[in-house]
């Protein structure tokens, strides 16, 4: 039976009313939980696992898939409206999205996130159905040295994209890199910079840092402004929905975000947030409205949100084809498979085609439900901003604190939230960008581990870093991204850059 026939048969399984109900429950729960900072999709699926023991395998996995997609989407709502990223993949969304919300364009930001997620989820799920075997062999070609090269490219492109001052951006980045060193070193099992505090042994939680820097830091900043700041923002200026111009500026970032997010999600050591960084950096470089970046550019929401959701579908590629869980949620789904005596892996597509195609089909359904569920809510969500500032920020403070201690009930965690919040305030006061700190915390440990793995495998031979074609290509791109703008600037032809961006658009 061909792929198309199997997919149609799978859709037949997924549109059975009871399975549609499971998908709806999953999407609703996932969205609700994604909104809470700290409690991610993995914890929700783990909590729900016992409930699903009595469902048939298809039903329970369909519900899991709904939670997964819902969770990835839910995080963007709080990022945009409250500047409080629920999970690491929606950190980038907060950058432009929250600026848009403050300028009365929250409706457009939420809509481009919802529709972008839908478009990306749709394309990526279809890609999962048809391209999985090829994508997985590409992903497996990535060893430690290729990952290291990818991280170098990420550092170069991403740090260039944040803020106007390279020096300030680098200072922020290095704060993040230092924080990334805290905890047990994976290769030797030794603790670093933990100062004998057991809670620091596992390193600094990305969501704690992000919530502290963004939400707590901003709350303090607003409080310090006192009466100088206007008491409320105007929630809607112009249309609540996306206007024609928004559509024109969004559709390309959606597609580019999908193309970036899907393969990175499929990589065993990728992670959804890496795709969002690349997408943001790319959109900023290609945009005709560079001056809007940092002040609410819709491309900066559309691209990363699409990348985030495409990456969620990408994660299922190694899970279904190799039995490789590359995210915490995928690991729980794997446990779910095993509960029914199913072993995901190369044989699953042939031994249980109904289940696999049923799952892929229900992802398509879950994706559709997500957009149907969320678009009508946009108007309601935006009204959150009409709450007077002192109430709104008090609420954000409460919400951020509850989310953090809900995920990890520990005094030290709470202390970290406070200290990083103060740090976020100080950085704002002195005009240092916030995002590179979080980027450093995420990318730093990955880059370090991959570099050390690569050098250990080669027994210290540095040339391996450039002898693989993929690594060499990525490093060349990184070098170009670093050098070309310098040369152009040195020649005093900054306008050429703008021209180039316009041409390639």
């Amino acid at each position: 039976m061909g792929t198309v026939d199997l997919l149609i048969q799978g859709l037949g399984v997924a549109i059975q009313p009871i399975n549609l109900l499971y998908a709806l429950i999953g999407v609703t729960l996932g969205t609700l939980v994604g909104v809470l900072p700290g409690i991610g999709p993995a914890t929700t699926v783990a909590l729900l696992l016992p409930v699903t023991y009595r469902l048939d395998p298809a039903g329970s996995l369909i519900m899991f898939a709904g939670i997964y997609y819902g969770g990835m989407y839910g995080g963007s709502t709080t990022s945009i409206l409250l500047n409080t990223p629920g999970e690491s993949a929606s950190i980038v969304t907060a950058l432009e999205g929250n600026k848009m919300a403050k300028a009365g364009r929250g409706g457009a930001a939420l809509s481009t996130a919802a529709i972008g997620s839908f478009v990306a989820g749709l394309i990526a799920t279809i890609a999962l159905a048809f391209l999985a075997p090829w994508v997985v062999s590409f992903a497996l070609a990535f060893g430690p040295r290729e990952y290291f090269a990818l991280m170098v490219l990420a550092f170069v492109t991403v740090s260039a994209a944040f803020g106007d001052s390279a020096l300030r951006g680098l200072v922020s980045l290095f704060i993040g890199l230092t924080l990334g060193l805290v905890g047990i070193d994976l290769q030797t099992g030794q603790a670093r910079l933990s100062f004998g505090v057991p809670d620091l042994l596992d390193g600094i939680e990305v969501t704690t840092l992000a919530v502290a820097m963004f939400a707590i830091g901003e709350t303090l900043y607003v409080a310090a402004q006192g009466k100088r700041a206007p008491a409320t923002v105007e929630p809607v200026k112009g249309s609540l929905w996306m206007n024609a111009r928004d559509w024109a500026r969004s559709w390309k970032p959606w597609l580019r975000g999908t193309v970036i997010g899907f393969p990175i999600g499929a990589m065993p050591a990728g992670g959804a947030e890496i795709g969002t960084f690349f997408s943001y950096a790319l959109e900023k470089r290609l945009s005709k409205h560079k001056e809007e970046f940092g002040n609410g550019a819709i491309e900066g929401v559309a691209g990363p949100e699409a990348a985030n959701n495409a990456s969620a579908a990408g994660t299922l590629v190694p899970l279904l084809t190799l039995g490789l869980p590359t995210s915490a949620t995928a690991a729980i789904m794997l446990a779910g498979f095993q509960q029914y005596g199913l072993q995901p892996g190369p044989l699953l597509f042939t031994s249980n085609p109904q289940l696999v195609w049923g799952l892929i089909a229900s992802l398509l359904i879950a994706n559709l439900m997500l957009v149907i569920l969320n678009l009508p809510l946009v108007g309601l969500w935006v009204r959150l901003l009409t709450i007077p500032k002192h109430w709104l920020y008090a609420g954000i403070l409460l919400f951020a604190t509850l989310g953090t201690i809900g995920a990890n009930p520990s005094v030290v965690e709470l202390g970290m939230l406070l200290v990083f919040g103060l740090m976020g305030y100080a950085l704002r006061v002195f005009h240092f960008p916030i995002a590179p700190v979080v980027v450093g915390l995420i990318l730093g440990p990955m880059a370090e581990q991959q570099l050390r793995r690569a050098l250990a495998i080669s027994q210290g031979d540095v040339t391996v870093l450039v002898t693989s074609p993929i690594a060499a290509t990525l490093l060349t791109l990184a070098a170009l991204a670093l050098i070309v703008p310098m040369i152009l600037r040195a020649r005093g032809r900054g306008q050429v850059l703008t021209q180039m961006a316009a041409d390639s658009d």
Partner: protein
Amino acid sequence: MKHVIAASILAGAIALPFAAMAADYTIMAPAAPGGGWDQTARSLQEAMTAEGVSGNVQVVNVPGAGGTIGLAQFAQEANGNPDRLMVGGYVMVGAILTNKSPVTLDAVTPIARLTGEFEVIVVPAASELQTLADLTAKLKADPGSVSWAGGSAGGTDHITAGLFAKTVGADPKLVNYIAFSGGGEALAAVLGNQVTVGISGYGEFQAQVEAGALRVLGVSAPERIAIVDAPTFREGGVDLVVQNWRGIWAGPGLSAEQVAAITADVEKTVNSESWKKVLAAKGWNNTWLAGDDFKAQLATEIENTTAILKDIGLVS
């Protein structure tokens, strides 16, 4: 998570007057959701509820540092509380040593060893290494030329690699062990031909072995096991048996009667049909060992693990 705890405390308070009712348990998995300890805790939860051993079982995850963060928290919170259980195992023994954890397994009450999983050494199908003897020869000639992919440093996989090298007469300090977070990443490195061999529990590699993408060189079991079609280390001339076991602990400060009651509840669960189904589905062995036998075994294990971690150079 917080309200789950609050709810279970509330439920406990309501249940207090009816002491004759089945006990409520809160099982701590000192790891993130999805891993082996989490799966053990959740399987216990399911089997205990299904068998009516307990009416209300909660699982809480306290991830980090090979379980030592959870252990420290558990030793404090579960003091004198017979409703609290914690899953742990061999990996925790190693982690306590490498992390120099201030709280050790002496601070909690061992109940029983529950399950075990043997380690396997695998190579990609295209590898030049055909047998364990090929690996032994390569390892003896140049220990650094064999890169081993497995879980975190100082864990069961790393210890097994060190013991393997030591047994064949290579210097365990020179073992080129590459630690990956989680089994998935290590498996990807083996499949992608990035490393010489992979070492982990058989469950991690099973699907790939059945599909012919990986070849098993040897199993760390004392004799051949049904699920793996490969020789044991011993058959391959390496006299080494390792089993990655998992067990369950209760808090400190419990009376002998309380410990006996918990042990009876766990034993009843382990002998049930639901638990047997779990073992079959996950490929775990039943390694039931309770009371003083478990304590004695634990003491030997800690001693041996300290020795090999010193040999590898992780513990000074």
